[in-house]
């Protein structure tokens, strides 16, 4: 799957995009976040406060219980501040 990070998350993690093979035991966004937090301090810091994380799967806003497949594009970013 494709992972994208924007704004603070991109800066904290250190890159804006990466490819990941979705482990079979991960069923939803919450599971993916738990998996990413195991990848090191930068990821743990980026995903520290779930209240400040928004997620889009294939460019549609979803909640943390949204199911995932290995073909999804998953984007993580903070609450939006455009306009």
């Amino acid at each position, binding site marked *: 799957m494709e992972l994208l990070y*924007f704004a603070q998350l991109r800066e904290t993690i250190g890159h804006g995009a990466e490819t990941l093979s979705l482990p079979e035991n991960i069923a939803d966004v919450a599971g993916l976040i738990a998996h990413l937090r195991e990848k090191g301090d930068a990821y743990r810091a980026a995903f520290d406060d779930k209240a400040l994380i928004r997620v*889009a799967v294939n*460019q549609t806003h979803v909640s943390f219980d949204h199911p995932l497949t290995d073909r999804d594009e998953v*984007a993580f970013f*903070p609450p*939006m*501040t*455009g306009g």
Partner: protein
Amino acid sequence: MKVRVQSQDFDITAEINDLRSGRTDIGAIVTFTGLVRDFHGDHIVRKMTLEHFPGMAEKQLREICQTAEGRWPLQGITVIHRHGPLKPGDQIVLVIALSAHREAAFEAAEFIMDWLKTDAPFWKKEETEQGAEWVAAKESDSQKCKKWQE
């Protein structure tokens, strides 16, 4: 409906003329223009950078406009949102709503702005004398969206 995400500036009169294009059935034009302010709270803002999610930004703006078109009798909508480096006084966003009636044009433009603030993937980073900082989302912006659901 015209939706554009671009780094270039825009001209309001030119965008209105483009949207009207010889029509004489339009009664009301409401425009909203958002600008970079030179202050945020008690911090002086020197520069701003607007990051966005290409593709999804346009998609979200189109969806917000479609919702507005379903809700008000509109004769045209333009939304332009800039990205990249900006400075105080620069234009950030333009919303134009055309209708036969002024109330629809006013409400649609305000509706689009309220939803754009919370649903369109753009993020502001400000450079102040205290350093560079990502702008925090405002709870008041989420509240403004709720009023449209009553």
